[in-house]
C-alpha cells in the first residue's frame, strides 16, 4: 500500500465517525469535551455554528452520528449490548444548561452589500440560509405560510417532544440577525416571486403533502380518517383536541410514532400502530419505536391494510391481510401468509404512510426544469442550484423527505453557493474545509484531554412520570440529563478526533506501542496489498469501511500499519513511545460556510 497521506483531511475526518456521519459535519467530540468541562455555552456555540438548532436537534435529530459511533464497535466485545455515546441527548444538555449566549452570536450586518435573497418557507433549511447570509450583509426575506417560523419543526413535531420555547429561542436567534420574516404569506406563484427582482431565491418549502390511502371505504368514512401530518398540524393549531378511544395509526415512520403518541394524549385509550413491513424494516428510528411502545402502544407488523370498514358513514374498523417478509435477489417482498384477514375495530384512523413533494406554485415554463418521471425539480447535488442558477432548493424540497440535520446541511451549502454566485465566482469551485491538527501533549504523560477510557454503559435519559405525561400534549416526556449524568455520559466519548499521528523517521521499532495497544490496532510488518495486509495484522482488520493508516518504510524496511477501526484514542501508544514517533493530535474540521473563501468578503486577502 502507499503511505497514507495525512495531509488530506479525509483520512482523519473519517476516523471521527460521528462527525463524518453528520450531514453538517458537527465537531461532536469537541463539544462533548466542552460539556464534560461544564462549558455548556461554548459547547452550544460549537453546535450552533455547525447545525444551527442545537436545542431542537438535541431532542429530535435522526442522529446519524450514533449508529456510526465507535463506542458501539468496541463495547460489543465486552459482552454488553453495544451502545453508542448518547450524542444527541448531550447536545440537548448544551442547550439546556448554557448561559445567555446572545452576546456571542453574530451581529446584524452594519452595511448592506446590495444583494437581496428570498427564502421560501421558514423551516430549518431556509433559516440556515438566512443565518449564513444575513451577517455577511445580504438582505434576506423569509416567506412562511404560517404565522411563526420553524416549519415542520413547529407544526408537526409534537410539543411533548419539543417545547415551543426552544423553537422560539432558536428561530429567534436567526431573525435577530436582521432577517426579514414575512409570516402568513404563502407563495402562490414562482413567476411572481421571480418578478420581485431578488438576486437569489432559496426554496425550502419542505415536503408538505401527506400520502393518502385510497382503499375501499376511504370516502364513506372520511370524517374519521386523517392524513397524519395534517392531523398533527391541526393538533398544534388547536383545531383538534380530542380523538376517538380506539385509534389505528397506519405507517412505520417517525410521523406515525408522533401520531400514535399524540393520540394517546388526546383521549386515545386503545392506540395501535399497524405497519405493512416487518418491525425491523420500519423507517422510524429505533428509539422512537421504543418510546411509543414504552407508552403502551403496540406495533403490529406485516399487515397490509385492505379496507376501511364503515356502518352508515361511521368508521368501525379496518381489515388487514397478513403477510411475511421475503427477500428475492436482495429485494424485499411481502408475501401473503394465506391466513384469514384480520379485522381491528377502531373509531379513528391516522394515515402516516409517507410524504410527498408538491410544487403546484412553480410554473413549469419559467426555466426551472422538473424531472419528467418524479416531477421533482432538477437540482445539482453539490451546489443545490436548479436549472435557473439563482434559484436553489434545499431540505425536503430538494430531494424528498429526509430530516432536520440534512436540511441544515443543505442550507449551508446553498448559502455558500449563493455567496459564490453573487460574488461572481464559480459555484462548483468550492472552498475546502478549515482543518487543524494540533498536538495535545502537555507533559511527559499528560494530555490536554481526558484519555482514561470510561467503562460505563450508556446512561438513560430521565423521563417524566408517565401517569402525568400521558395526560398532556405539552409536558415534555424526556427530562434531559442533569449536569452529573451529562458528565458521566460525556466520559464515554472516546475522543476520536484526537488522532494518533505516526512519524516514521522517529521510530526505533521497539514494539512498545504494539505491546501496549489494548485493541491490537498496531502492526509492524512488510508491506502488501490492502486486502492481503488486512489479514495478517496483530488483529485482523475486517471492517473494510474503516481505513488502514500505513506509514512509509521504517528502518528495517517494514511499515507501520494501524487499523483505525477500533482505536480507543487512549494515547497509550504515544505514552509508551520513547522517541515521540507517536503523537496525539486534535483534528478539528469545519466546513466552509458562506463567507469563507469568497474574495469579495475579504477573508482570503487577510489570510
Amino acid at each position, binding site marked *: 500500500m502507499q503511505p497514507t497521506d495525512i495531509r488530506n483531511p479525509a483520512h482523519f475526518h473519517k476516523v471521527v465517525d460521528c462527525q463524518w456521519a453528520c450531514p453538517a459535519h458537527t465537531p461532536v467530540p469537541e463539544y462533548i469535551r466542552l460539556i464534560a468541562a461544564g462549558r455548556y455555552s461554548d459547547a452550544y456555540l460549537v453546535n450552533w455554528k455547525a447545525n444551527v438548532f442545537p436545542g431542537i436537534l438535541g431532542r429530535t435529530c435522526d442522529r446519524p452520528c450514533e449508529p456510526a459511533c465507535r463506542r458501539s*464497535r*468496541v*463495547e*460489543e*466485545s*465486552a459482552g454488553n449490548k453495544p451502545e453508542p455515546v448518547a450524542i444527541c441527548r448531550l447536545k440537548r444538555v448544551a442547550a439546556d444548561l448554557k448561559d445567555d449566549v446572545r452576546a456571542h452570536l453574530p451581529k446584524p450586518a452594519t452595511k448592506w452589500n446590495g444583494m437581496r435573497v428570498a427564502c421560501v418557507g421558514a423551516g430549518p433549511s431556509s433559516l440556515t440560509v438566512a443565518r449564513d447570509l444575513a451577517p455577511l450583509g445580504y438582505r434576506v426575506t423569509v416567506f412562511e405560510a404560517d404565522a411563526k417560523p420553524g416549519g415542520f419543526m413547529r407544526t408537526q413535531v409534537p410539543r411533548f417532544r419539543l417545547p415551543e420555547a426552544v423553537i422560539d429561542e432558536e428561530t429567534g436567534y436567526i431573525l435577530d440577525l436582521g432577517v426579514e420574516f414575512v409570516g402568513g404569506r404563502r407563495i402562490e406563484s414562482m413567476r411572481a416571486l421571480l418578478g420581485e427582482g431578488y438576486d437569489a431565491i432559496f426554496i425550502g418549502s419542505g415536503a408538505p403533502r401527506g400520502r393518502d390511502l385510497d382503499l375501499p371505504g376511504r370516502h364513506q368514512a372520511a370524517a374519521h380518517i386523517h392524513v397524519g401530518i395534517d392531523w398533527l398540524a391541526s393538533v398544534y393549531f388547536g383545531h383538534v383536541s380530542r380523538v376517538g378511544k380506539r385509534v389505528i395509526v397506519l405507517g412505520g415512520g417517525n410521523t406515525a410514532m408522533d401520531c400514535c403518541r399524540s393520540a394517546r394524549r388526546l383521549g386515545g385509550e386503545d392506540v395501535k400502530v399497524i405497519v405493512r413491513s416487518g418491525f425491523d424494516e420500519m423507517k422510524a428510528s429505533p428509539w422512537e419505536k421504543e418510546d411509543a411502545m414504552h407508552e403502551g402502544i403496540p406495533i403490529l407488523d406485516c399487515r397490509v391494510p385492505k379496507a376501511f370498514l364503515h356502518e352508515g358513514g361511521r368508521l368501525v374498523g379496518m381489515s388487514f391481510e397478513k403477510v411475511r417478509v421475503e427477500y428475492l435477489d436482495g429485494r424485499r417482498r411481502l408475501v401473503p401468509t394465506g391466513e384469514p384477514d384480520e379485522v381491528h375495530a377502531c373509531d379513528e384512523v391516522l394515515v402516516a404512510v409517507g410524504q410527498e413533494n408538491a410544487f403546484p406554485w412553480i410554473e413549469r415554463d419559467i426555466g426551472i426544469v422538473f424531472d419528467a418521471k418524479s416531477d421533482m425539480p432538477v437540482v445539482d447535488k453539490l451546489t443545490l442550484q436548479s436549472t435557473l442558477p439563482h434559484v436553489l432548493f434545499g431540505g425536503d424540497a430538494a430531494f424528498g423527505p429526509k430530516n432536520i440535520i440534512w436540511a441544515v446541511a443543505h442550507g449551508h451549502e446553498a448559502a455558500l453557493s449563493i455567496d459564490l454566485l453573487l460574488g461572481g465566482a464559480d459555484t462548483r469551485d468550492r472552498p475546502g474545509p478549515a482543518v487543524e491538527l494540533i498536538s495535545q501533549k502537555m507533559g511527559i*504523560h*499528560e494530555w490536554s484531554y481526558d*484519555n*482514561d*477510557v470510561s*467503562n460505563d454503559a450508556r446512561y438513560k435519559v430521565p423521563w417524566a412520570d408517565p401517569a402525568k405525561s400521558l395526560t398532556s400534549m405539552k409536558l415534555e416526556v424526556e427530562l434531559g440529563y442533569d449536569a452529573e449524568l451529562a458528565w458521566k455520559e460525556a466520559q464515554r466519548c472516546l475522543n476520536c478526533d484526537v488522532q494518533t499521528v505516526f512519524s516514521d523517521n522517529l521510530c*526505533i*521499532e*521497539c*514494539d*512498545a506501542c*504494539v*505491546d*501496549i495497544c*489494548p*485493541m*491490537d*490496532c498496531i502492526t509492524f510488518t512488510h508491506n502488501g496489498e490492502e486486502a492481503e495486509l488486512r489479514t495478517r495484522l496483530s*488483529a*485482523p482488520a*475486517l471492517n473494510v469501511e474503516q481505513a488502514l493508516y500505513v506509514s512509509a518504510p521504517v*528502518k*528495517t524496511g517494514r511499515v507501520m500499519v494501524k487499523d483505525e477501526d*477500533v482505536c*480507543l484514542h*487512549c494515547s*497509550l501508544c504515544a*505514552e*509508551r*513511545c*520513547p*522517541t515521540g514517533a507517536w503523537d496525539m493530535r486534535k483534528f478539528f474540521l469545519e466546513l466552509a460556510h458562506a463567507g469563507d473563501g469568497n474574495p469579495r468578503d475579504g477573508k482570503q486577502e487577510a489570510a
Partner: protein
Amino acid sequence: MTYIAKPRLHHPSLACNALGYTRRDYEGRVSTLCAGCGHDSISAAIVRACWELAIEPHRVAKLSGIGCSSKTPDYFLSPSHGFNTVHGRMPSVLTGANLANRELLYLGVSGDGDSASIGIGQFVHAIRRGVNMVYIVENNGVYGLTKGQFSATADAGSVSKKGVVNTDAPLDLVGLALQLGASFVGRSFSGDKEQLVPLIKGAIAHRGAAILDVLSPCVTFNNHAGSTKSYDYVREHNDSINRLDFIEPRAEITVDYAPGELIEVTQHDGSLLRLRKLDAAYDPSDRVAAMNYLHERQAAGEIVTGLLYVDEGAQDLHAHLKTVATPLNTLDTAALCPGAAALDRINAALR
C-alpha cells in the same frame, strides 16, 4: 511510566485459549519502566507464550531479584504467584521453592546485573543442579536503575552514553550456561517476538534448566551509537541460526519441509521442537560444537540468536535427588516423620 491503567476494552476478535482465557487475562499491571524498554516486549512475549500454551496462571511462580528486569513480573501474569527476592538471590529461592513443590512452573526473571554480577554464584549453581525452570535474563549491558553504569555483560570497547569506553572483558551468560550443563539454551532479542515467543514456549515445555539470554535494549542509557546492545546494533549484527516452531503434544503437523532443512526434537511432555535451519551447518544437539560456534561468531562481532542447544534426554534436580513424585509440601506428617524405627534403619545403614 504511564498514569492510566490499560483500558479493559479489547479487540472484538480477541480469542480464548483452551482454558477460556484471553491473552489479556495473562497481563499484569501497566509497566512503570521507561517508554520503549525492551523488557516490556519480553513481558508481552511471556504473556503471549503462556496464553498460547493455555497455562493455568495460578500454576506459575514468578521469581525475580532486583533491578529493572526484576520489576517486570508485576507487569505480566497478575494471577500467578510471585516472589521478589533479595538482589541476586532469585536462583536460590527458586531452587527452594521448586524442591518444596515440583508441580508449579518456575519462571525466573532476572537481569544482567542481578545474574551476572551480584548473583552470579547463585546463577551458576542453579544451572549446575539442573533445576527445572525457565530462567530469562533480560540483558541490556547497563545498570539502568542506577543511571547507566556498564554491567558485567557489556562488551569491551562499547561506549557508554557519556562517552566512556568499557575496558572490562564481558561475561557471556550463554557461554556459561552451556559450560555449566544447562539443557536448554537460547538467545534472542526483545525486538523479535517471532523468534522469542516460540523459544519461551519451548523452554516452558522443557524439563531441566532452560536459560534464555534475551538482549533487551535500555532506551534510556544504552541505545546510542557505540553501544553493542542498542536496537540498531543488535538488528545489524544478529546471526539467527534457526527458527523454532513449537508444536504442542498431539497437535497435527501440517507443514512439510525438505529433508535437511529441519531438526526435530521431542521433549518429555511430548511437545515437538521443529527447528528450521537458517545456518545449514548448525547442530543444536552438540554442546561442544555450539560453544565453538558461539566463540567463533562472537570473535567476528556477531550475536548468535536462536535455540543454541537442547538436550532432549535431560534430567532435572528432582531426578538427581530421587525425590518422591508427590510434591514435598503436600506430604503429611506420617510420610515426613516415619518414626523412630525408620530412623534406626537409616542410621544402621550408615554405620
